[in-house]
């Protein structure tokens, strides 16, 4: 995709992205993004966009949001130096600990921000989708916190492989709606949430969990998640005495990656997004959207998607439910096309191996999603000795125990 633009056009678009001029007023990140939604939802998107404009950067909303991040989410999250991993890899490894945020992943930053927004916009009810269940848990917790009812759509396949999170969502007072349609994973859950929203566009607030979908979601989620990169940048300066040479984050829809990368776009830091390589390179064997996909429209946005020649969206495969998605946020599509961020993939077995290594060297059980970032960073460190590496540890792995029990510890 890096050949999509001429060099000067790529530079112009990237400069605009770094300056904060993306998305434009039509919700475009260069050619990507936009708003491809059913007519019934157009007025709801108009209201949401107006609400985001009015509140998101207002001092009153920001004060409330920052207070919740500090006192309820537990921010700032730590930046941990990883001495034993550094030694094993021949690198200087720093880990941004989103696993320490309330509910155990970065998802809570977005969920509490949007729940506060939903309350201000007078929503009667919140709906959300979830893949790995982390966004479902975060939405349930955030809605309980602000006093809104919440229904979470979750694919039947994901309910099985992320069973602990299903129970957590219910205990936090939200309803879990099993999605038996489509591929029964994240993509089907988003389709089903959109269908539900269409039934009551005035009363429902759709709390979308990733930087995907129609405008203004990719923008809104990025703004709420940018706290990750803003904190990590300052912490690197304070604790490591300088910025990293390279930063890694896993990419499904891409919310934790855009949250980490966005505040670092203007720095001289190599940025690498890691998608799910699944079990192989063939169509349907992975969820490496940016690595192997083509431009198209999925779930409200013109972006890079996994599709066949007829424009039918393809099913994906990954050991991690949170990366198991056929699309990706439109801003990532732009960052790839401009060459600013490199997107690669790690396979299931590499992710599992990295997960085991992080457990035994640093005492951190990371999520299967995040393990992909560690797997790629590990490979990079071996090829580029002595680098200072920052890894976004997007979430903790307790939810993955049902999957991990199939693989013996210590592999």
């Amino acid at each position: 995709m890096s050949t999509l633009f001429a060099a000067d056009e790529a530079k112009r678009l990237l400069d605009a992205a770094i300056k904060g001029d993306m998305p434009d007023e039509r919700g475009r990140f260069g050619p990507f993004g936009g708003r491809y939604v059913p007519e019934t939802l157009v007025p709801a998107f108009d209201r949401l966009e107006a609400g985001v404009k009015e509140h998101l950067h207002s001092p009153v909303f920001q004060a409330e949001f920052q207070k919740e991040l500090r006192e309820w989410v537990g921010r700032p999250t730590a930046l941990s130096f990883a001495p034993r991993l550094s030694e094993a890899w021949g690198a200087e490894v720093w880990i941004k600990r989103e696993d320490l945020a309330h509910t155990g992943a970065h998802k809570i930053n977005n969920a509490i921000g949007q729940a506060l927004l939903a309350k201000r916009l007078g929503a009667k009810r919140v709906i959300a989708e979830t893949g790995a269940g982390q966004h479902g848990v975060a939405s349930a917790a955030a809605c309980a916190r602000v006093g809104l009812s919440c229904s979470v759509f979750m694919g039947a396949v994901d309910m099985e492989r992320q069973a602990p999170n299903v129970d957590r969502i219910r205990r936090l007072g939200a309803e879990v709606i099993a999605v038996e349609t489509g591929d029964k994973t994240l993509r089907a859950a988003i389709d089903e949430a959109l269908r539900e929203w269409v039934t009551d566009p005035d009363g429902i607030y759709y709390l979308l969990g990733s930087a995907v979908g129609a405008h203004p979601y990719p923008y809104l989620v990025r703004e709420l998640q940018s706290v990750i990169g803003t904190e990590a940048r300052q912490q690197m300066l304070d604790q490591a005495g300088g910025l990293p040479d390279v930063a890694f984050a896993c990419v499904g829809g891409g919310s934790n990656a855009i949250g980490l990368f966005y505040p670092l776009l203007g720095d001289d830091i190599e940025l690498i997004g890691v998608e799910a390589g699944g079990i192989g390179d063939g169509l349907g064997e992975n969820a490496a959207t940016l690595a192997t996909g083509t431009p198209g429209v999925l779930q409200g946005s013109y972006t890079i998607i996994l599709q066949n020649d007829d424009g039918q969206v393809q099913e994906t495969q990954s050991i991690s439910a949170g990366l198991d998605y056929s699309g990706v946020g439109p801003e990532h599509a732009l960052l790839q096309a401009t060459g600013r961020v490199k997107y690669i993939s790690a396979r299931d077995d590499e992710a599992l191996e990295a997960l085991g290594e992080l457990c035994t060297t640093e005492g951190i059980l990371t999520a299967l999603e995040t393990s992909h970032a560690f797997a790629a960073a590990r490979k990079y460190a071996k090829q580029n000795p002595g680098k200072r590496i920052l890894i976004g540890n997007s979430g903790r792995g307790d939810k993955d125990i049902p999957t991990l029990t199939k693989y013996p510890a210590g592999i």
Partner: protein
Amino acid sequence: MSAYEKIHAAISTANDSGRTALVPFITAGYPEPKDFIATLKNVASAGDVVELGIPFSDPMADGMTIQRSSFVALQKGVSLKWIFDELDSAQGEIDAPLVMMSYLNPLLAFGFEDLADRALAAGVYGFIVPDLPYEESTELRAVLEAKGLGLIQLVTPATPEDRLKTLCDASRGFVYAVTITGITGGAGLPVDLADYLTKVVSHSTIPVCAGFGIREAKDVAAVGQYVAGAIVGSALVEVLERGEDPKPFLEALIE
């Protein structure tokens, strides 16, 4: 007469004969690809305009019935290219103008220019694209209009009045008035349609057809008081799903 004006004409002819125009919807190639043209001919003999659904992997505005038919058709290899090939082979045998209902991505993958050429050749005079709102439609609209093909706009009970006017002005072929705030395949019509449908008609200079939740003759009669045509989708797909002849079902709708 441009291609999309043939859609107006077909609807007007029905109205002139004293009845509501009937716009049946079928998912192309469902339930069996080999029966596609026979099913289409049969349905077209009872309908005034036929809406042909292009199967898509992510039909986010559709309920269970059309999701299911779409999935089955894809499983059996139905694609837009195959549909055009089949339509070409049935030139002159289909007794109604066709409109295609497709989500945007299969059309993007096909290419807009090729789409317009093949549509015109195949007797497809209009397009309904449920995930393409007016603001994103400039490019497709221009390509279609250059060939005299119509981009049919949907309007809904949630559409504000100023937007309603914009959408009615932009629509070509007919205006698709969605009767409910919801997805296709609903249980039935809402009770208070009069104000909404009257308002849509007042803004439109072309025929208005109502769709979503139309299942029986009384539903067709209910919308027929206000608008030129009635679109019947999920209820017809269910008839096909049960393996029944769609013609008596459609004829009973306008009795």
